[in-house]
């Protein structure tokens, strides 16, 4: 085992991690630990755009953007955080332009903007052009531009280093009101070098988690194979709560059967959804903004069409995204990648044929709770000094119960930057926290137990059963019965997980071993998502309970906070303690959400 010492360690090299690294790397000795080469990160798969009220093509302002974000999140958004994001969006776009991002341009040479779901002018009057974009590869361009700037600033990367544990120490402390409590402090992280199989401990004054989402708990997902909830899982195992994990976004337009993302920008450019009767069904569900309603509403409407027998195809299990009324040159210039995806993977020619689509698991609204300075919280309001999180792994909460399209690319830039600045600033004045005795012990045990296990179960089989049950029971429509079914399956999978075997016993590039580790995180995350979903007996944003179809502000206008707690017994499962946290309101009172 080797020990390294850095002022700042960033975990993850997607958009949030690299945006943080650009700031932190110029101010403090910084290392970025990433399980993938930076340019492989899933930020690169984002397509449609990044919203900011530049008002380059029509009237707009950040206050409208704030309102849309809050309403889009069905009022579970912390409004102070949404204001920060919408306000700083403008500089975030300009920063990227200065770093070299090749945005599409207007005829006058300004950054062009297009429509996106849920983004409106004047509090919902009509769709507005707010999304800055680079064809349908905006995420690719952001990832490349950030990596280019990391190269420019000589940021130090440890590529293919899997962070598997967070080193925290606890100190006795007393609150202002005299009650004693345990204050957590960060000492560093433990990582596994894929190439050699060696463990490396990184001692750091500041640690930034920017490790992305957990979409692989579902079968049909737009997420990469590597998005297994590692960062959330590590934090959870170390006693940090996870906020609002019941809210998972299903993106309406995944390629049917495959889940590959087709950007909402397609609908922003004029594409529409049709059912088997050729009907533009969104006119019924969202009469004002129709196909550009927020994702939760569109996804649910699609699933409902299928459920009521108006799905297409031999099994009537998808609907159609129709671009055939658009100009081919227009599609080719604005949406080149997604048309190629339809051709390559489904053999469908989108210029002349509508494309089969169905909702695909896309984005975790919840995650590690932070404040607007990207500082991680160990409960509702106690900051863990030196620990930061940004991007999908975090919950600020700017997305509430449903994220608006493009707000994730915005989130990673605004809060990635904030996290990098704050981490460097903290490291300047702080001392290193002494590493615990045998800092790698937990990770060594985790790995050796899996490596030496002689069980009869296969990781891939368990993972598939998990994903199948999550798709069947915890997707767009949920009920107490379906959630209980999922919890029962997860429980039995947990038992079987103890009986797995891996075949690769080697040290070098042992991805077999790491897939087993990742399955552990997936099981944890699936259980947290399902347990919190069971407890939220209302429907809000991305979380829809058929047995409680209305939003219930009296009982549920609050964030959920899930803690790992061996002694806790909750409805349907055990080992997770549920608490709540108030939502921050500044100026918008909850209204009924209609589009």
């Amino acid at each position, binding site marked *: 085992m080797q020990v390294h010492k850095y002022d700042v360690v960033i975990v993850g090299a997607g958009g949030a991690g690299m945006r943080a690294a650009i700031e932190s790397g110029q101010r403090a000795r910084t290392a970025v630990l990433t399980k993938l080469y930076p340019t492989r990160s899933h930020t690169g798969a984002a397509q449609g755009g990044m919203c900011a009220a530049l008002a380059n093509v029509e009237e707009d302002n950040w206050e409208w953007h704030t309102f849309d974000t809050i309403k889009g999140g069905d009022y579970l958004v912390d409004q102070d955080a949404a204001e920060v994001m919408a306000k700083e969006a403008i500089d975030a776009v300009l920063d990227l332009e200065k770093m*070299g991002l090749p945005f599409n341009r*207007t005829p006058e040479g300004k950054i062009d903007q297009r429509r996106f779901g849920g983004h409106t002018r004047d509090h919902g009057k009509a769709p507005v052009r707010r999304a800055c974009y680079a064809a349908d590869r905006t995420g690719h361009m952001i990832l490349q531009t950030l990596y280019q700037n990391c190269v420019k600033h000589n940021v130090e990367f440890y590529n293919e280093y899997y962070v598997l544990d967070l080193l925290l120490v606890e100190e006795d402390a007393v609150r202002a009101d005299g009650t004693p409590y345990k204050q957590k402090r960060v000492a560093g992280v433990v990582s596994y070098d894929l190439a050699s199989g060696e463990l490396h401990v990184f001692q750091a004054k500041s640690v930034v988690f920017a490790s992305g989402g957990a979409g692989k708990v579902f079968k049909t997902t737009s997420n990469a194979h590597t998005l297994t909830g590692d960062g959330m899982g590590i934090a959870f195992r170390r006693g940090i709560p996870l906020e609002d994990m019941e809210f998972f976004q299903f993106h309406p337009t995944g390629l049917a059967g495959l889940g590959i993302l087709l950007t909402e920008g397609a609908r922003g450019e*004029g594409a529409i959804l049709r059912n088997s009767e050729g009907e533009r069904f969104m006119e019924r569900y969202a009469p004002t903004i129709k196909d550009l309603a927020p994702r939760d509403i569109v996804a649910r409407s699609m699933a409902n069409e299928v459920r009521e027998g108006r799905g297409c195809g031999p099994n009537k299990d998808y609907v159609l995204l129709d671009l055939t009324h658009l100009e081919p040159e227009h599609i080719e210039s604005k949406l080149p990648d997604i048309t190629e995806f339809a051709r390559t993977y489904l053999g469908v020619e989108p210029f002349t044929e509508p494309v089969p689509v169905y909702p695909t698991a896309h984005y975790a609204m919840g995650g590690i709770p932070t404040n607007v300075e990207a500082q991680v919280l160990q409960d509702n309001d106690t900051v863990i000094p030196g620990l930061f999180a940004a991007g999908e792994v975090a919950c600020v909460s700017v997305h509430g119960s449903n994220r608006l399209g493009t707000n994730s690319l915005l989130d990673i830039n605004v809060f990635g930057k904030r996290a990098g600045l704050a981490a460097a600033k903290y490291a300047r004045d702080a001392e290193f926290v002494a590493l615990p005795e045998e800092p790698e012990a937990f990770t060594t045990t985790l790995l050796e137990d899996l490596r030496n296990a002689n069980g009869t179960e296969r990781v891939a089989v368990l993972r598939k059963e998990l994903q199948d049950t999550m798709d069947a029971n915890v997707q767009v429509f949920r009920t107490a019965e379906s959630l209980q079914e999922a919890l029962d399956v997860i429980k039995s999978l947990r038992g079987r997980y103890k009986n797995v075997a891996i075949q690769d016993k080697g040290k070098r*590039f042992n991805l077999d071993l790491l897939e087993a580790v990742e399955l552990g995180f997936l099981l944890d995350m699936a259980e947290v998502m399902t347990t919190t979903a069971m407890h939220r007996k209302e429907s809000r944003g991305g979380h829809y309970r058929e047995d409680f179809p209305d939003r219930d502000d009296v009982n549920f206008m609050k964030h959920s906070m899930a803690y790992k707690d061996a002694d806790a017994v909750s409805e349907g499962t055990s080992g997770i303690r549920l608490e709540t946290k108030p939502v921050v309101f500044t100026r918008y009172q909850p209204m009924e959400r209609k589009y």
Partner: protein
Amino acid sequence: MSTELPEPASVVKLAPGVGGGGEIPKFDITLRVRRYDPEVSEEASWEDFKLTMYGTDRILDALHKVKWEHDGSLSFRRSCAHGVCGSDAMRINGRNRLACKTLLKDLDTSKPITVEAIKGLPVEKDLIVDMEPFFQSYREVMPFLVAKGHEPSKERYQSVEDRERFDDTTKCILCAACTSSCPVFWTDGQYFGPAAIVNAHRFIFDSRDEAGDMRLEILNDKEGVWRCRTTFNCSEACPRGIQVTKAIAEVKQAILARSL
């Protein structure tokens, strides 16, 4: 800018069978994989796997089937599974391609399908190569925007035409399919290789950039663009459809134009 469109019809009549569908064909294949694990043996060898696959499956699905159902030690990189992250360039039937973008039905499944690591970079294990030399060349061409002077507080303007000039080379996902298909690179690992030149091109032809001369100087080196023999392997290999050879030619021309 987006053009204003008339509202599409509320209801249209769909042609029967629209949007594909139907029974997905099933077939058997032999996947012949080049295995190498120095912890087991210094020798590389071919191993065959017989698999039943479906019409929509890709090489990546076949590799996963092997890893998940037959032999967990088979090692390869992958992440996005739809051709945007650049993890899984490999030699498939002797051609460099992304495993996640190569559909089995487009290959001749009556014969074994060969899969091996890309050439010219040190093999680490099975299909995994050491990417460090590749990224080293990339870093050497200053792959970032250099704009001197005061940072503007507003956005810089760029005309649609100026933006279009370098569009093709912005698509690169650094998968190394091009560089590792280049016969010059196979024999001379010092050669920058097509991918680095593509990424230099992206900035040389960006009207906002001011370091074009420095990059041209770097690529005028004896290991630079002049080593290119215009074999077009790189353009054929590029999964993003980038006209790699054309980009290299444009950089050559820019060097010549500058020295005149």
